[in-house]
């Protein structure tokens, strides 16, 4: 015990000495449990970003420390505390899950660190709890389902059945689609989430079918998405109850669905702020190199993580150090970098003001299942909570 503490003490003193010339980014994501498939994609993309940057942000060396949130808010908060207090990082980034971000928020911001969410976008942080040191490279949770609600209106869907996991983002997704969808919501199921999430949806699917709705809206990120799609397919609901999903059919679930040959998923539609087919130089490079290096399409989780690193690097390069917080904040806000989604700009609450696209699951030229853009649903969309943000 004593030797261990002495060793770590020595190690931490050494790391303090090396701290001056490097910019340290703590990256919190899920590396264990089934949800680690998302964390892995983010980690790959972060590493690719660092590689593309040559390991440098301007003259400073980039160092990324990955930490595991174990898919649990308490563990995520502990990981954040450690990054802030022990590793003394300059930026804390990552965060797949809204509840993990909400739990960890104070630890990073109270310590005066910049907090960059590469995925989670809970309504609270976009509104009342907004902070000048918080930035998002993803979206506010409501936005993607709002775009889907708009799509449903355009397609003349009159009644909808809604299924989502019972946690912060799940509730945001439901309120998002309710915000824009003009028809009637005939039923709603919130299922158990977390490390022991419910994965058998037989009872819920039977209810959805019996409800007679025109469509089924779901939000099942990560591993649950694959499980949901299989059961939807097996239940033969494709023609009876068309599926409109957000964050469910993606680059993480499609390869598995292809391996299991569940063709029912092809043609299903989903909304997103990014797609591998978006036509800009940064995106082409990101997608091509990611595919070359890791042998699969990146997901939006990866794209947003890649952008988060590029954003941080652009700010540090512009300022030239990590101590001038005001200059860094201004440089972050300016968002002067080549985003994989083309133009990138922040709104008043430091969430991106961005386009949302309708995507369709298709087979690419090499026979790999992926997505492509069908149309643009929203242009330069501002989230609904920005007005609540007093900053």
């Amino acid at each position, binding site marked *: 015990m004593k030797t261990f503490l002495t060793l770590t003490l020595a190690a931490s003193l050494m790391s303090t000495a090396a701290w001056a010339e490097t910019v340290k980014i703590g990256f919190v994501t899920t590396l*264990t449990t089934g949800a680690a498939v998302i964390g892995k994609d983010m980690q790959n993309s972060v590493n690719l970003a660092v590689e593309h940057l040559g390991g440098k942000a301007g003259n400073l060396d980039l160092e990324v420390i990955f930490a595991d949130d174990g898919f649990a808010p308490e563990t995520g908060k502990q990981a954040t505390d450690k990054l802030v207090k022990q590793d003394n990082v300059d930026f804390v980034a990552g965060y797949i899950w809204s509840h993990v971000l909400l739990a960890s928020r104070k630890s990073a911001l109270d310590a005066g660190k910049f907090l960059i969410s590469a995925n989670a976008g809970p309504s609270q942080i976009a509104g009342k709890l907004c902070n000048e040191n918080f930035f998002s490279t993803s979206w506010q949770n409501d936005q993607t389902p709002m775009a889907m609600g708009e799509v449903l209106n355009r397609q003349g869907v009159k009644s909808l059945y809604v299924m989502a996991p019972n946690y912060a983002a799940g509730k945001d997704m439901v309120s998002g689609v309710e915000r824009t969808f003009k028809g009637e919501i005939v039923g*709603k199921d919130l299922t158990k989430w977390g*490390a022991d999430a419910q994965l058998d949806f037989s009872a819920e699917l039977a209810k959805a079918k019996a409800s007679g709705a025109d469509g089924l809206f779901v939000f099942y990120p990560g591993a649950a998405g694959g499980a949901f799609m299989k059961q939807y397919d097996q239940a033969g609901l494709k023609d009876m109850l068309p599926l409109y999903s957000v964050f469910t059919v993606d680059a993480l679930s499609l390869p598995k669905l292809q391996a299991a040959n569940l063709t029912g998923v092809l043609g299903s539609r989903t909304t997103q702020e990014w797609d591998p087919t978006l036509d800009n130089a940064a995106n082409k490079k990101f997608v091509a190199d990611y595919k070359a290096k890791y042998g699969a399409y990146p997901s939006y989780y990866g794209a947003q993580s890649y952008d988060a690193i590029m954003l941080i690097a652009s700010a540090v390069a512009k300022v030239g150090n990590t101590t001038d917080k005001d200059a860094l904040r201004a440089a972050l806000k300016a968002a002067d970098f080549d985003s994989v989604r083309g133009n990138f700009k922040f709104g008043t609450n430091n969430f991106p003001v961005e386009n949302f696209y309708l995507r369709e699951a298709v087979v690419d030229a090499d026979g790999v299942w992926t997505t492509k853009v069908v149309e643009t649903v929203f242009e330069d969309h501002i989230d609904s909570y920005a007005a609540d943000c007093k900053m």
Partner: protein
Amino acid sequence: MDFSLLIIQALNGVQLGLLLFLVASGLTLVFGILDFVNLAHGSLYMMGAFICASLTFLFGSFVLAVLVALPLTGVLGFLVERFVARPLYDRDHLDQVLGTFGLILVLDTLAHLIWGPAGIAVPLPGWLQGQIAMSETLVIPTFRLVIIGAGLGAAAGLFWLVNHTRLGMLIRAGASNRTMVSALGIDIQTLFALVFALGAMLAGLAGMLIAPITEASIGMGNNIIITAFVVIIVGGIGSMKGAFIAALMIGLIDTMGRSFLDDLFKLFMSSDAAENSAPAVSAMLIYIIMALVLSLRPQGLFPPRTR
């Protein structure tokens, strides 16, 4: 309420109940005969799912994969018995709980190392993929019926094995009087190992049957093991009949709770409150039932005869 929905949900409940029985029967066998608490029984369920998933891709056939994966999980159970369970037989339940808790961590992490974090979707052959229309409104995925059939088959086989074979006779005798059986010159070690392997195969089978619906994923066993314990406690430890009845009861209550509790709650509370509280109350239901049963019958519904 819609009548065909009720039937579909009842079938879903039976399916869940049978899967629970497959896991719980092994647990209750090992518990009843070996007096051994195996928290890691759920990890065998997970390993069954993963092994079957890998073999399905190797052979290109789910059915063949199940047939090969079954003895493999049996072997795995045999190894667990030899190296973890056997040294813990004469310890108290506390040591067994902790030792097998450690085994859960080990097996979960091994699965992560071997198969990666993503989990594996298991493809089904076309003839199992579709649905069967019972009537206009009553359409059931074929594979769900297969699960029910396989579960019933395994249950019947197990009852036959326990009640009508020599091995079963020894198992029953071992459960009620261990020293007596060994005094009769029966190799009790081998009997125990066989029972353990049989339990592992049953749990593995449950994992293989659920994998094509959800998927093989890390930690999937930790979810079901607690429910399986609830089943055997409610049924009475060591009682196969108790496990069967309790499993079906818990499966039905859980599924029915998830489907109809919010409608029930809406009768006397606001729609929002009902939608928010129903999922949690339905999750609590099985524990409430367990506490209720135990407070009335401290040894479960079908307490084992003298030990």
